[in-house]
């Protein structure tokens, strides 16, 4: 990986961390509120499905996770196992794409229009 790419990855890690800090706080506050108002799937989906604002918020959350986690994982695997090179980059890139895909599935399921 080129030096320029390594520096930009570091920059993306920092920025996604800032986004995640905000998203996590909002998410935790929302969970605490939601738990009080009824925990069954029907009750929760009744509140979340069709909400454009929350759909947008959680899409941002998923993107931030899909950026932040693989970059961090790449460093951790490199430091813990001594891995370097193309194989590591491809593996963590695939993990990032998977997180984005599964995350968006969840966002669509929870905040998309319901299957009424």
């Amino acid at each position, binding site marked *: *990986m080129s*030096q*320029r790419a*390594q*520096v*930009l990855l*570091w*920059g993306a890690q920092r920025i996604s961390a800032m986004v995640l800090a905000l998203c996590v706080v909002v998410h935790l506050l929302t969970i605490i509120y939601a738990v009080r108002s009824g925990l069954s799937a029907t009750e929760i989906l009744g509140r979340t499905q069709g909400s454009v604002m929350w759909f947008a918020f959680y899409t941002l959350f998923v993107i931030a996770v899909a950026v932040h986690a693989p970059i961090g994982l790449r*460093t951790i695997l*490199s*430091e*813990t196992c001594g891995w370097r090179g193309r194989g590591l980059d491809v593996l963590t890139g695939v993990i990032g794409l998977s997180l984005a895909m599964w995350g968006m599935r969840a966002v669509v399921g929870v905040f998309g229009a319901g299957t009424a």
Partner: protein
Amino acid sequence: METLQVRIWRGTEQGDFQDFEVPRQESQTVLDVVTYVQRKCDSTLSYRFACRVGVCGSCAMTVNGVSRWTCRTHVSKVAADNKLEIAPLRNLPVIKDLVTDMREFFDKWARARGRFTGSTTRKDPLARISPESKERKRVAAGIECIGCGVCYSACDVVSWNKDYLGPAALNRAWTLINDVRDTARAERLAAVAGDAGCHACHTHISCTERCPMRLSPTAGIAGLKRAVLAATLSGEI
């Protein structure tokens, strides 16, 4: 009189601790202890020292798990229960006993481009730099490094990433980045960028905590991260 139970590393990376008994004395330093062992107990013990007054950095070792200058470490400060464990500095190859091979430490200094590159000659007038300028203050905060290796030994990332340039090399690069007379800024920023450079630092701050000169390589590395990102985005490097 009290006696210290002292364990000292013998051998190379393969080896073991050897036990000695050393009479405890007032105002005794750990270097005094090592010296006593070598003179009175086992003359085959190898160790480094020079000034023995805390200005040269040669006597750096690991004392009870912590990297420090042994001539500046009073036994009374570290020997709880009269026990001392003395080992060579971490993260460096061991030549023998308490002596480490410092070559990779200085090689990384060179790789970080830790040397000044100027544009004037001895015939030109001296550069005029105010000590109050913000750049010079940054240089002043980091310039007193004497290359003792304690920070390198204390750094977790150096242990985990063999390519990592390390706190001392990066600190020196930072002082040169802020030296307005230096002409190799772009090359130096490129030298300290990336996975083996400043971006590998996780801000554990062990270097700053342990530096006997009270420097903060952590602060310098944070500055390098900002400078490198800015230079990358602007296309300078």
